């Protein structure tokens, strides 16, 4: 029920790449092959545990349709983390990443942690974007990268949690002002943050970040 921090996430990316499915898999642990088009934004929330701390993730799952673009931009503000999703079977969704990234950078805090996600890794036979390409793009733009499958749940958990770990690390490094809500972080009820700084924990979590290969 209680949490140490609340992080606001946004999920962005082209329509049909599986944003809502990723969220559903993460919050409800199920997969829905046919999903209604998202209008504006939908929400999900889940508690995760990072270094023994309960963290509530409040996830804003935005509409991917181009026509909603100007509206969804309004929702970016105050996000601590973003999942930027493309579909590994549709190259155009990968090609649009730059424009999504520009949008994200422009409309949210500069400290926002961005996780690049190549979704639908279960459809290996239809793959159109190589894993290395995703990795290269992430490296170039300073993003974390993972390939996931909302269908098989592969790496879904990890994608959300690793993002949270990175945010948590930034908090401990003092990069995030947790008292400024524009950063998308809120301190949970009855928390005393002054005592929460622990460099050893942050080092450990940053090392964890790399181990994302897993099943995909």
């Amino acid at each position: 029920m209680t949490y140490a921090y609340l992080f606001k996430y946004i999920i962005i990316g082209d329509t049909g790449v599986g944003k809502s499915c990723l969220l559903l898999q993460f919050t409800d642990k199920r997969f829905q092959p046919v999903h209604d088009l998202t209008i504006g934004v939908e929400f999900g929330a889940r508690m995760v545990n990072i270094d023994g701390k309960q963290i509530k993730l409040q996830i804003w799952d935005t509409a991917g349709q181009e026509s909603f673009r100007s509206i969804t931009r309004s929702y970016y503000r105050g996000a601590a983390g973003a999942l930027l999703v493309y579909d590994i079977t549709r190259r155009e969704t990968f090609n649009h990443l730059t424009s999504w990234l520009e949008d994200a950078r422009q409309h949210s805090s500069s400290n926002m942690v961005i996780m690049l996600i190549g979704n639908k890794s279960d459809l290996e036979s239809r793959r159109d974007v190589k894993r290395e390409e995703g990795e290269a793009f992430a490296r170039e733009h300073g993003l974390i990268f993972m390939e996931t499958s909302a269908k098989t749940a592969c790496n879904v958990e990890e994608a959300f949690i690793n993002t949270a770990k990175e945010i948590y690390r930034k908090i401990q490094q003092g990069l995030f002002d947790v008292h400024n809500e524009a950063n998308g972080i809120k301190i949970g009820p009855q928390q005393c943050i002054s005592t929460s700084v622990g460099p050893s924990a942050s080092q450990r979590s940053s090392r964890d970040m790399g181990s994302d290969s897993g099943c995909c």
Partner: protein
Amino acid sequence: MSDKGDIETEVITEATSILEDENCEPTKNFESVDQSAKSESKSEPVASTRKRPESKPSSDLETSDVLPVQTSQAAGKETVSKDVPHTGWGYWGSWGKSLLSSASATVATVGQGISNVIEKAETSLGIPSPSEISSEVQYATGETSAKENENSSPMSGPFGVFSTISTAVQSTGKSVISGGLDALEFIGKKTMDVIAEGDPGFKRTKGLMNRTSTLSQVLREAKEKEEQWTTNEVTMETDKKTHYGLLFDEFQGLSHLEALEMLSRESEIKVKSILNSLSGEELETLKCELEQLKEAFSLAEFCEEEEEEKKGDEDFTKEITEVFSQLHVSSKPEKLTRARNTACEWIRTSLAKPLEEKEEGKKQLEAEKIEQINNNSIEDIHAFAIRSLAELTACSIELFHKTAALVLHGRKQEVTAIERSRALSQMTVVLCKELSSLSKEFTTCLTTAGVKEKADVLNPLITAVFLEASNSASYIQDAFQLLLPVLEISLIENKTELPEA
């Protein structure tokens, strides 16, 4: 002291007089409740106006808040046997709450400023500030039991007076049940003051509600305080289940509200910059049109008395679907109607059994029967009521948010912004009425299930349902207002054929 007494009586009599008015519009199922409430409320004002607490009581109370302490004593003597524990908040909370709710019902009908009357009620009855409550409760309860132990003779002197006052308060609390909250639920933000007194989360947020803070901020704050309070002071699972704020957030009401606020704010900025870029005649025409739009948002219908009483069950779904379709947005209010129908179904099954059995059981040992028959305890009903209100409100706000998104999204418009505003305004009325009617039904469930319960157990639950219903209505109305800038920008863009920014 004596003029305080005057004001106090005023509040109570006002409350009771509207109660009688409200009783004039019969609510089908609850004739028996009505009658009992009526007979009580008829006798009470006389009792309470007959005597005044003229003399300072002789007891050794040094605080200036003499009255509430004594009233609690009186109430304690009257309704509570020695071994009933007076638990801190519950006991005091109930007392203060039921008075406040009746006072606010009065306000809405009589048309006075609510803060005015609350202030009156506070000064006259000396309702303690929330922070004082806990210490006073201990004091008061200590006093009560001490007095009861040493003095077994019938109540005399000032205590007699106080007991009548407290009965009056209790009966007004009860008759709110029959009268309903038609009025209270429409008072909007001013309800904050009332809620602040009764709700542990809100009470500390009181005063936060100013121009600079947004609604969702206030709500979030209240929710966080509530969470804190929950962890600090409440350990029982059941208590968590009845926290409106937590439930509202669980149903994503808070998130939708925040998102709606974002869209609203962005639209507002756009409208301003467009207005700044215009001049002369063009500006005047636009201003005029925007003014018309604003009028559609003023909710004039709320002031009028509702003509029809509650209609059939199916009607809400039909009505809301119809109104919603006038918006011409590609979405349907299914989630809302589903949630509402679940609530109605629950009420129906909950009421069906006890009512039937009550009829035949009347000649027999009624109390025993009802005890057996009731599957749902009053706590269950209360929890479900609060949950339903939170869910319906969250769904309503989601609906407004989606509408805002779709209005901003839509390029071709078959309807004008004014037409949409009117439909939205009507939707707000329908939603608020439905919440009112639901809260009435929930409290009927409560009174039916709780016939055997003492007033100080039942009343706070009833009051809580009404307060949250009025709370809900306020959120819905505030959310509705957030749509104004959205429709303004839609009007402008449709008019000037501006390409989407």
